[in-house]
């Protein structure tokens, strides 16, 4: 098992290498001189030259790639053009809000979607099944930020139950922290929830047709036991896979959700950086987020062994 984890980790290196080169190449494949674009509309020739040498754009292309990769390997993501702070510092400052938001949304989604999917599969064709499926399709079509505004309007503006926006670090107490995250996490979780519920239902439908399920029911086990211990466990591989793959949706949604709720997270950092054309920050965030995505899917791969003892690495 351990050597396999190591082998898998090594296998992610080429993927991350491609990500790093792609993120770097972005600057060069887009039309126009990147230094001019980054400097903005009111820049002088001096500003442009300064940015060009600061980003190493005056070097030959392959040298630039080499320098860039060398820096990343050492964990140096460069410095922000706007604030002059190291990009890694900016990212770690903003990580808390994003991690809290996505984890909270993940917990909500999984704990609602999996039972819904199981129920829909068990009662296939019933009213519950149809309601769950309609929910899944419409949830998947819902514009995240619009849902956020609707929730704000109902729960914060009209009823004053929850704050309109903002963030409280967890050091200020668990309740203020959670209170500020309830609406954003709900907003963010809907799409993910729809995806997981759909996959759970589809996967459960396949398993529920198996003979051993009939046997389990026939020997008089309670439905709950059969569904959870016999069916869900065997249906779990595709569900876990979609939880990993869908994480990309969660990140995309987080960018927009943070903007609606004014959360000081990585999404806001990116959007601000885009408005200021602060390219090192944009590159750093993409690199870190893609790395997390690759690692999460690696963990999912490893979970297969736990969930299905037949799989051996």
């Amino acid at each position, binding site marked *: 098992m351990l050597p396999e984890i190591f082998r898998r980790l090594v296998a992610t290196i*080429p*993927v*991350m*290498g*491609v*990500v790093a*080169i*792609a*993120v770097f190449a*972005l*600057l060069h494949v*887009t*039309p*126009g001189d*990147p230094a001019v*674009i980054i400097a903005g509309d009111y820049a002088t020739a001096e500003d442009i030259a300064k940015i060009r040498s600061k980003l190493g754009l005056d070097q030959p292309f392959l040298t630039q790639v080499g320098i860039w990769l060398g820096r990343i390997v050492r964990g140096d993501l460069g410095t922000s053009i706007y604030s002059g702070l190291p990009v890694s510092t900016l990212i770690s400052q903003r990580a808390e809000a994003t991690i809290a938001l996505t984890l909270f949304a993940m917990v909500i989604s999984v704990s609602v979607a999996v039972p819904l999917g199981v129920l829909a599969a068990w009662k296939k064709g019933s009213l519950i099944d149809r309601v769950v499926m309609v929910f899944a*399709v*419409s949830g*998947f*079509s*819902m*514009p*995240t*930020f*619009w849902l956020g*505004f*609707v929730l*704000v*309007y109902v729960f914060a*503006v009209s009823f004053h139950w929850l704050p*309109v926006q903002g963030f409280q670090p967890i050091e200020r107490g668990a309740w203020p922290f959670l209170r500020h995250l309830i609406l954003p996490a709900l907003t963010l979780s809907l799409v993910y929830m729809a995806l997981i519920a759909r996959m759970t239902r589809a996967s459960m439908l396949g398993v529920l047709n198996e003979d051993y399920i009939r046997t389990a029911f026939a020997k008089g086990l309670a439905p709950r036991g059969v569904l959870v211990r016999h069916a869900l466990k065997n249906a779990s591989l595709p569900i876990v896979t979609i939880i990993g793959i869908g994480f*990309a949706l969660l*990140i*995309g949604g987080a*960018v*927009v959700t943070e*903007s*609606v709720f004014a959360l000081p997270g990585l999404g806001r950092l*990116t*959007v601000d*950086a*885009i*408005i200021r*054309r602060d*390219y090192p920050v*944009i*590159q750093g*965030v*993409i690199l870190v*987020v*893609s790395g997390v*995505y*690759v690692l999460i899917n690696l963990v999912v791969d490893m979970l297969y062994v736990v969930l299905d003892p037949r799989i051996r690495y």
Partner: protein
Amino acid sequence: MSSSTHVLGADVPGPPPPVVSAREPVAERLSAAARAARFVRRQPTLVLGLIVLAVIAAGGVFAPAWWTGDPLEMRPVERLSAPAAGHWFGTDNFGRDVYTRTIYGTRVSLIVGATVAIASVVLGTTLGLIIGFYRRLDAVMMRVMDGLMAIPAILLALALMALMKASVRNVIIALVIPEIPRVIRVVRASVLSLREHTMVEGARALGARTPRILARYILPALVAPLIVQATFICASAILFEAYLSFLGAGTPPHIPSWGNIMAEGKTYVQLAFWIILFPGLFLALTVLAVNLVGDGLRETLDVR
């Protein structure tokens, strides 16, 4: 609407049509109607999605005909007025009519959705066919695709928009690039399995060259899955255009789009919720309709 239903209806296998002689035109009309009715019964989601989409598309194409005004006209005196007889969806911060802007906004969404879907499927299929058929390219290119797909689509699109001027054309480019690897992967998987198929071996034995095999044997088998994938790409492109515009990195402010109407309403959630409510409803409904069409097509064309 009726013509598209009919065309699609013709593909549904069913009992043979009743024999109709030339003297009985009424019976022939009935059978067409009956076939349409059967199609609606079998594919309610597809038909519902197509109807909603047709209505929305008609709204966008014939925008001036739907009692709209000038989407850019500002009337500061009437700013932030609530929905009423003169302004069905209220007005925004500049006194512009939200109803007019929402109807005009349909255009950007539909153009972006359709163009991104077609462009990414065409480019992705071309590249996928080449990569899938030339083994030497395959291993390297798939590692590259894995890497590109590890970058969340919305972040890649945002980064691209940061380097390009805000315009509808650039939004389309920024949304097509993240989709291409995803199309390539689907195409490549099909090519790999079809390449070993007996019909391909037979064609090769008869002396057919690779381009001919790709065009005559591989491509036709890809049409159905690609149509379904194009529909889902269209739905997500419509959503992503709104996200980009909402974040200020999409359609420029002088072209009304659902995303930038809502972006301008962001500051007035508590005062003038209608600026966000109505464009968002249109957006959600359109994406839902496209997703329903996608689900329906997947069933009708029996993909996966």
